[in-house]
C-alpha cells in the first residue's frame, strides 16, 4: 500500500504543478460557483415577478390569486449538471491523458518498472492519485455550492435534499473518473502525449455531443397545444432507437441521473432517494460500465506489456 500511496502522492504533486490542469480546474470551480449564482438569481427573479403580479392583482381588487410557484431548492443548482458533464470531463482528461505516454516520452517508465513494484501497483497508484484530485475538486465544489446556495438564495436544504446533492456528487465523481480511466487507457496505448490528448478530445466530443445529437435526431416529436399562450410546443419523445444510441453516452446517462437528483424533473422532485435510484437503475448501470471496462482494459494491457 505504501508504494501505491507514493505513486498517488507523486501524481497529485505533478497535477498541482501543471498549469494547464490548474487552469481547467479553476474554470470548473468558477463555473460551478457561477451556476449557483445564476440559479439563485433566476429563482429570486421568479419570486419577485410573482410578488409583482400578486400586488397588481390585489390592487385591481382581484379575489383569485395564483398559487405561489413551487421552487425545488436543488433545481437552483441544475446548471452544475452541464458543467460537470462538459468541463468536469475535460478536467479528468487533462489529468490523465499523459499519465503513461509522458512517462514513456521522458523515459521515467523504465525507472519506475525497475523498482521493486508490481505493474498493477503503478496503475492503482495513478488511479488513487487521479481519484484524490477529482474528489478534492468535487468536495470543494460541494462545500462552496452549499455555502453560496444558502447565502445567495436564502433557502436552506433539508437532510433529504442534502442526501440527494451528496449522491449527485458521488455520481459526478464516478462520471469524471470514467473519463480519467479512459484517458489512462488511451495514454497506456499511445507512445505520444499529443496523440493521446487528441484522441481523448475526439472521444469526449463523440460521447458528449455526437451521440446525444444522434439520439436526439432519432426521437419522435409530438405537438402539444399550450392553452395559456395558445401556441404549439414541440415535445421530444424517446424511441427504441434513440434510447439504444444513448446507451453509448455516459454523458446522457449522467445528465438523466443528475436531473432527477437535483429536482429538475418536477414529477420526481419529491420521491425518496431510494425510489429515485431504483427508477434510474438502467442509467446507473450504463454509466458504470464504460469506466469498469476501461479499468479492466488498462490492467490487461499494462500487465501484458511486461511479457
Amino acid at each position: 500500500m505504501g508504494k501505491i500511496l507514493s505513486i498517488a502522492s507523486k501524481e497529485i504533486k505533478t497535477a498541482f504543478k501543471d498549469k494547464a490542469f490548474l487552469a481547467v480546474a479553476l474554470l470548473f470551480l468558477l463555473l460551478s460557483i457561477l451556476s449557483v449564482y445564476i440559479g439563485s438569481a433566476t429563482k429570486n427573479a421568479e419570486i419577485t415577478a410573482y410578488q409583482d403580479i400578486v400586488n397588481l392583482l390585489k390592487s385591481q381588487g382581484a379575489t383569485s390569486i395564483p398559487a405561489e410557484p413551487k421552487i425545488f431548492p436543488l433545481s437552483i443548482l441544475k446548471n452544475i449538471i452541464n458543467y460537470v458533464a462538459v468541463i468536469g470531463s475535460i478536467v479528468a482528461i487533462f489529468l490523465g491523458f499523459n499519465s503513461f505516454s509522458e512517462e514513456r516520452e521522458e523515459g521515467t517508465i523504465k525507472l519506475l518498472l525497475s523498482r521493486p513494484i508490481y505493474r498493477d501497483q503503478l496503475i492503482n497508484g495513478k488511479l488513487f492519485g487521479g481519484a484524490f484530485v477529482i474528489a478534492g475538486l468535487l468536495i470543494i465544489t460541494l462545500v462552496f455550492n452549499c455555502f453560496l446556495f444558502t447565502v445567495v438564495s436564502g433557502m436552506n436544504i433539508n437532510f433529504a435534499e442534502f442526501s440527494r446533492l451528496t449522491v449527485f456528487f458521488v455520481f459526478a465523481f464516478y462520471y469524471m473518473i470514467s473519463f480519467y480511466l479512459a484517458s489512462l487507457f488511451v495514454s497506456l496505448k499511445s507512445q505520444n502525449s499529443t496523440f493521446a490528448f487528441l484522441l481523448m478530445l475526439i472521444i469526449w466530443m463523440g460521447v458528449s455531443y455526437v451521440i446525444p445529437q444522434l439520439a436526439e435526431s432519432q426521437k419522435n416529436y409530438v405537438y402539444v397545444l399550450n392553452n395559456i399562450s395558445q401556441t404549439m410546443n414541440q415535445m421530444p419523445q424517446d424511441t427504441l432507437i434513440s434510447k439504444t444510441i444513448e446507451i453509448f453516452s455516459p454523458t446522457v446517462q449522467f445528465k438523466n441521473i443528475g436531473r432527477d437528483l437535483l429536482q429538475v424533473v418536477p414529477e420526481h422532485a419529491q420521491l425518496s432517494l431510494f425510489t429515485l435510484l431504483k427508477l434510474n437503475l438502467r442509467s446507473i448501470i450504463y454509466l458504470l460500465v464504460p469506466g469498469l471496462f476501461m479499468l479492466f482494459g488498462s490492467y490487461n494491457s499494462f500487465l501484458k506489456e511486461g511479457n
Partner: protein
Amino acid sequence: MLVINSLTKNYDGFTAVDNLSFKVGEGEIFGFLGHNGAGKTTTISMLVSLIRPSSGSAEIAGYDVVKDNLKVRSMLGYLPENVNLYSNLTAFENLYFFGSLSGVENVEKRINEVLKDLEMHSWKDTKVREFSKGMRQRIGIAQALLHKPRILFLDEPTSGLDPQGTKSIRDLLLYINNKWNTTIFLNTHLLSEVKKICSSIGIISHGQLLMTDSLINIKKKFGSEKSLEDIYFRIEGDQNNGENTVYSI
C-alpha cells in the same frame, strides 16, 4: 554477481539477443560494447526485469531475474539512456519518490548523503527542468544509488554529454565502484570510456556475444601494442566476414 545463461529475446521472428552467456564478478566494472542496435539495451532490459527473456536465464546474486524479479529489482540500480526524470519536480522530490518506491528507510537522510557524495546537495531544491544534461545524469545516478544497490546498470550514461560532463560521470562511476564496491554494468559504444574505467568487457554485435574477458587478458591475447579500437574492429570485422568466432579466454 551476474550470471547469464543462453539469454535470448525474440520479437516476431527477429532475434534481438541471441543465446548470450557470460559472468560478471562482484565489484567489477563491466563494459558492454556494441554498435547501435547490437542488442545492448535489450540485454539490460532483461537483466533489470523490464522485459521477459524468450529463453535462457540470468541471475543476480543468485536470484533469477524472472522468478525472483522483485528481489532482483530491490538490489539493482538502473539508469536508462536519455531519461529526463520528472522535470516539474525538484531533485529532492524526484529522489524522495524513487527512494520511497525502493523502500529506503529514512529516505530524507539517505538523499542528503547521496547528494553530498555526488556533489549535488546545493541543487536539491531546484527543479530538474533547470538542470543541464550532465546534472540530470547525476541525479539519475543518485536515484539509482539511493537503496544501496549491489549492482548498477547504466545504459549509455555519457550519451549527449560534452567532454567535461563525460569525464565527470566517468570519475563518479569510479568513485562509486571504489567507495561501495558496487558492481557496474555499463552499456556503451564509446571505446574510450571502456578503456578508462572498465575492468572487463563484453562485445555484442547483431545480438550475439563476440567476446568477453578482462581488459588485461584481451591485451595479452591480441598483443599489447594493439589499441582497443583495433581489437574491436577486428572482432566485429570477423563477424561481418561470416567467421562467427567467439573470443573467450
